[in-house]
């Protein structure tokens, strides 16, 4: 798989769109999830994901080797930062943004075949609560929490993606987790079973 990816990357660096699209299919889910967790809504995440791949395609010649995944996620991260900066400059309120969060987004989640309706509702409540908690984090802490706790990446890779060092990653991650915990507890956002689990 790694050799195949290297071949695709090398071919894409020479402008082969099909090879690049093969890489897109490999990483579009990860890129989209990162954008979704950073931006908080499906439309913005889709647009940012598309922009990130477009930017990657145009800059493939600048890729100097190493982990293509890290390089791609770094581009996606920077794209998300651009979107967030634009939002700060031009704050807008979407009339259906909340409805999209609560209704559309869960429909796009991967369904668990074995869960009951109650469990599905509880999972949706939990997802909403965690999204709200993530939204309370500063951007530099949010990206680290998403990359570590959502995407399961190592500190080294997070440092590479965010362009920081290990110490910064550790610091931001611990503070982000502490904030998350505070936010989840403050608004009684945790469902009962997690509060129970939490108290164990």
């Amino acid at each position, binding site marked *: 798989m790694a050799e195949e990816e290297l071949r695709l990357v090398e071919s894409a660096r020479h402008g082969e*769109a099909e090879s690049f699209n093969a890489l897109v299919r490999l990483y579009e889910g990860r890129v989209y999830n990162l954008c979704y967790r950073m931006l908080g809504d499906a439309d913005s995440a889709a647009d940012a994901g598309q922009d990130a791949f477009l930017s990657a395609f145009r800059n493939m010649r600048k890729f100097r080797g190493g982990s293509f995944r890290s390089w791609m996620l770094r581009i996606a991260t920077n794209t998300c930062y651009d979107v967030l900066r634009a939002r700060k400059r031009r704050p807008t309120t979407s009339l259906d943004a909340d409805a999209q969060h609560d209704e559309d987004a869960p429909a796009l989640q*991967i369904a668990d075949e074995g869960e009951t309706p109650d469990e599905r509702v509880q999972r949706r409540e939990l997802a909403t609560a965690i999204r709200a908690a993530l939204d309370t984090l500063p951007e530099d802490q949010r990206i680290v929490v998403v990359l570590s706790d959502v995407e399961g990446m190592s500190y080294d890779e997070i440092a590479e993606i965010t362009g920081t060092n290990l110490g910064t990653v550790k*610091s931001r991650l611990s503070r982000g987790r502490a904030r998350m*915990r505070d936010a989840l507890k403050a608004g009684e956002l945790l469902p009962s079973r997690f509060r129970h689990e939490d108290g164990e």
Partner: protein
Amino acid sequence: MSTSFEQLNDADLELVSAYIDGEVTAEERAVLEARIEREPALRAAFEELQATVRLVHELPRMIPPRSFTIDPASARPRWAGAFGWLRLGSALAAVLLALTVTFDVVGSGGLGGGSAAPAPAAVMRDQSTGGGASGGASAATNAPTAKEEGAAPESSAANSAAADQTAPTSAPASGAAPEAPPASGQNPSIMSQAAPEEQATETVQSTDSGMSNTFALRSAESPTAEAPAQNAPESATAMAGGVAESGSSSPGTQAFAQPAPQPIPPQEPLRPLRLVEFSLAALALVLGLAALWAARQGRR
């Protein structure tokens, strides 16, 4: 429970967070595990943080609403679309430049309007046609000139013929143009050319001076005129001898000593139309280069 984080300092919080991810050294792990066993606040903080990490990790994966695959045509850089406009702009600037130049040439009286001043070579040729003696004396001067020009065979031929009349040994100097055909007498075509009247008069008037005057003038000649004499010493010696034998000084000697001043074309002020031409040429060049660059980038 709610006070567990507040009892931790930043260093302990970082250590617990890294411990959950397995990003601590063996020594740090041993120390921290021992502390968690004996410090309830640290244990509570560890459990809260661990539960939070687990919750976040359980977030469902989202499915992208559409594929992000790239269409190469639409993925072209934005400036690649400017290629057509750049090319069109360059072509328009070139057409405008052509029209402006045409207007400029037609308006100024045609292409021949600016050739009023005689060429320097023509001036030298005219001097060489002043007479047999003068032609012979000026052969040493004219021969290197013809050598420099390299494209005036009739001038060299005439000089050679004139040199033969007075100083046969000066022929090597005129051999600068060996391919020149031998000419007999003076070339009518050269005679018919417009001679600068002032130079001709001055040359004739100076024929009364003798050898001493000739050498005096030679010593005062400019470096430009001296260089040919150095290149052809035999010719110079022969020239002087030829003049002495003939008992008359040569008007060509004066021409040799005081080379004719190069005619300086009158300086025309830079007209607005010329400025427009330069601007259009620069614009066409810049736009053309930009279009070329955009086309090369678009092919990548």
